């Protein structure tokens, strides 16, 4: 579409991954249901001395002055820490260890002492007006991921608190949910080494996949978020946030490039800004790009010494990429199947040892295709397939019946002896020689629907009718 090289396209990524179990500085769960509203309170945010002279921060607070922020607390999903009415508790040790492990995986340098910082946010999305964040790893020359289009260096890894989710805006009242606030969030930044939109997607996928090796990451919609920073020749730095689906990333980047080219062609300047990724691949203006973050140490939290005892606990789990290759080799699966099995967290080994007679390729396909069906239904099918009571050709039909809660009569799906069918066809052709191949096919399919392989049937009919 474009000559990215000629455009001097530069892309860097920011990957945000939520961690599970409990929030970073309190005991609230990271389960995120927002069902039972427990309380609601409103706050104002004001500029703090020291912010004068920092135009961007001051401006943000100036705007906040006219706003009222309303916070919604859902049962078990918030506490006084989230309300900014209790100092932070001890850091979530699991989250810290996971972050240090990820830093180790990317061969990053961890500080000898970690200091929790307050990053100022004036839009109300942090009840306290700041987000707690800490630097866990700095990239070294060995910190990079490989993509088919070259290496992408990793700049840094931070562990921070997620911010509130916006619920609604009513004039000057902005409503936030406290449930997401405080969930541990890993932030991985790359250098702007990415040169094409496809490479951006590949790099994001790779990082996401590597992160899935860690047991404490949260899975599901919204648990991983990718921001794209991009610039082209004569353009300016644009940050795109909020991709709903990774596969839209290349299209969105291309749209953004066209947008910038159009602006440049008109002789105008591309403004530095944050844009939102829309579902159709376009982007829309969100806000101007903020200046350098204003940070200062969180005086409520002691510094964390990254000493030998802590480092001894830092372990890199078996990587998902290694698991895929291992499974692929052991069961002679395609890479595609093996990676789907692993990504969907399917207990392939368990099924394989239970249903030894089903060959692994088929088993893997079935486990993936029917992963969303009831486990009982799947087991029923696999058992009968394993014992030879049904053939693979009828699985779809059996499954369909099970899904509709129909009683399944296996007799109906009994595997068919093709030599018997051959005799039947021979009889039929003898009796009614005027019948076309299709007509014979029709009669037989009526009788053996779902139990015979259509292709094989045609072969037999053709063979017998040419005789």
């Amino acid at each position, binding site marked *: 579409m474009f000559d990215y090289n000629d455009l001097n396209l530069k892309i860097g990524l920011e990957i945000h991954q939520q961690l599970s179990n409990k929030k970073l500085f309190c005991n609230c769960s990271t389960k995120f249901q927002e069902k039972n509203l427990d*309380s609601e*309170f*409103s*706050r*104002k*945010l*004001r*500029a*703090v*001395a*020291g912010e*004068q*002279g*920092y135009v961007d921060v001051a401006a943000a*607070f100036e705007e*906040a002055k006219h706003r009222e922020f309303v916070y919604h607390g859902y049962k078990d999903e918030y506490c*006084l820490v989230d*309300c*900014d*009415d*209790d*100092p932070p508790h001890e850091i979530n040790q699991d989250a810290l260890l996971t972050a240090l492990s990820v830093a180790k995986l990317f061969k990053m*340098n961890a*500080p*000898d*002492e*970690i*200091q929790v*910082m*307050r*990053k*100022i946010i*004036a839009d109300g999305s942090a*009840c*306290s*007006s*700041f987000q707690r*964040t*800490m*630097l866990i790893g*700095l990239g*070294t020359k060995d910190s990079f991921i490989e993509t088919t289009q070259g290496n992408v260096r990793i700049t*840094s890894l*931070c562990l921070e608190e997620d911010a509130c989710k916006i619920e609604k805006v009513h004039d000057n009242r902005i409503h936030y949910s406290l449930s997401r606030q405080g969930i541990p969030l890993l932030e991985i930044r790359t250098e702007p080494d990415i040169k094409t939109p496809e490479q951006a997607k590949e790099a994001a996928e790779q990082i996401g996949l590597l992160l899935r090796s860690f047991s404490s990451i949260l899975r599901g919609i919204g648990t991983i978020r990718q921001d794209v920073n991009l610039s082209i020749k004569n353009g300016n730095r644009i940050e795109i946030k909020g991709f709903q689906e990774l596969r839209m990333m290349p299209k969105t980047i291309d749209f953004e490039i066209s947008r910038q080219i159009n602006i440049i062609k008109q002789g105008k300047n591309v403004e530095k800004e944050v844009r939102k990724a829309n579902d159709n691949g376009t982007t829309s203006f969100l806000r101007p790009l903020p200046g*350098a*973050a*204003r*940070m*200062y*140490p969180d*005086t409520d939290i002691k*510094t964390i*010494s990254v000493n030998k005892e802590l480092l001894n606990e830092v372990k890199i789990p078996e990587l998902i990429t290694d698991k895929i290759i291992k499974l692929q080799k052991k069961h002679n699966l395609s890479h595609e199947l093996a990676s789907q099995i692993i990504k969907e967290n399917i207990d392939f080994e368990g099924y394989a040892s239970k249903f030894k007679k089903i060959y692994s390729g088929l088993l893997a396909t079935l486990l993936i295709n029917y992963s969303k069906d009831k486990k009982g239904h799947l087991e029923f099918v696999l058992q009968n397939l394993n014992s030879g009571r049904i053939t693979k050709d009828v699985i779809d039909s059996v499954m369909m019946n099970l899904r509709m809660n129909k009683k399944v009569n296996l007799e109906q799906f009994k595997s068919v002896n093709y030599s018997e069918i051959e005799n039947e066809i021979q009889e039929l052709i003898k009796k009614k020689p005027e019948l076309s191949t299709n007509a014979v096919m029709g009669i037989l399919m009526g009788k053996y629907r779902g139990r015979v392989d259509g292709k094989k049937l045609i072969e037999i009919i053709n063979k017998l009718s040419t005789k």
Partner: protein
Amino acid sequence: MKNFSAKAGDLVEISTDNEVFSGTLIPSVNHDILVLKLDSGYNLGIKKNKIKKFRLIKKFSQERPEKQNIVHNKNLPTISILHTGGTLASRVSYETGAVSARFTPEELLAMFPGLKEIANFRNKLVREMFSDDLRFKHFSILAREIEREIKNKVHGIIIGMGTDNLAVAASALSFVLESCPVPVILVGSQRSSDRGSSDAYLNLLSASLFITKTDFSGVAICMHENLNDKTCLILPACKTRKLHTSRRDAFKVVNDKPIARINYEMNQIEFLKKNYGKRNGRLAIKDKFEEKVGLIKITINMNAKQFLSYKGYKGLIIEGTGLGHTPLDVIDKETKEHAKIKKVLQVLSKNTVLVMTSQCLFGRVNMNVYSKGRELQELGVISGKDMLPETAFVKLSWLLGNYPKQVKELIGKNLRGEINENLTKEFLE
């Protein structure tokens, strides 16, 4: 590397075996660790013994706060703020991360710009201390400062203080200022003012509004009513207690009602109590306190020695259980110690004024209901009625200091709103 010639705030570059970092030098608590603030804003701690090379890039030049010219507004009254420390007015340096207190009028108005619409402000830093470090003498120091400010014809006084003992200080000051022609409002903040979400702003604005817009005089407290940044309450000095370690609405009235509610944004003040001190009269200060006064909290399994440690004291507040009880009965061989406690109380009461309060906080002491209470009365223990234990503590010390001959008569008499003879059900709801 052992010696680093650079100072906090300097831009430096340091090299270890494998890496080179540059950033601003930050003061470090840990002597083995050097802290750099990187370009990204993050602080990075590096072990000093790893550092191989060190280079100064740029010396720190002190950031000067913008000088605001304060214009005295003739149409507005003047309020004086006496600072004693606490988190009411602090400022953060993004270069070094240091949080420092701000006390000049310029600095204060820069922090709380809304104030200049309400009044002119005079500021004085009296002490920079935690309220935990208060001694009786500090109330005398504060009283003299208040006297000076009243002579300067200020319309009212705000005392900024750490919240831990803010309520105790309020009740002590209300005894010290036997008569006070202006409002003296104690203001604190539960979330330090170095964050945008601090409660300091609303507390200070509300107190200022209350001082300028009403005829109230005397000592009171102004803090958040609830978790909303909407309303503040004016709370009675002797009937308020910090009942939560961290919430912004930690201060609650016990056995009484708040005096007034302030909605700063709506410019509304609603009095919740009809009887309150009005502006009139002159200043009368009584600032003596008896040093030898104590407060003992009753627990199970106490021993006589704990009580005996107050021998030689002039007064002792007992924070008893329920209606006002202590361990006293010997019912088996395990409770023999209680006979000794009884004996010690008998001895103490000869030279020490013993006053009973309740750790229930809500409700009134009544030592007539159980025989144990009656026995305590016989031993010489006086009922502190519904007084908060801490209020009773400062009152007893103040009475011993200023009215030594009338202590037993005055302790149960309401002098500053510390005793409420009409407890109604609304107080614990």
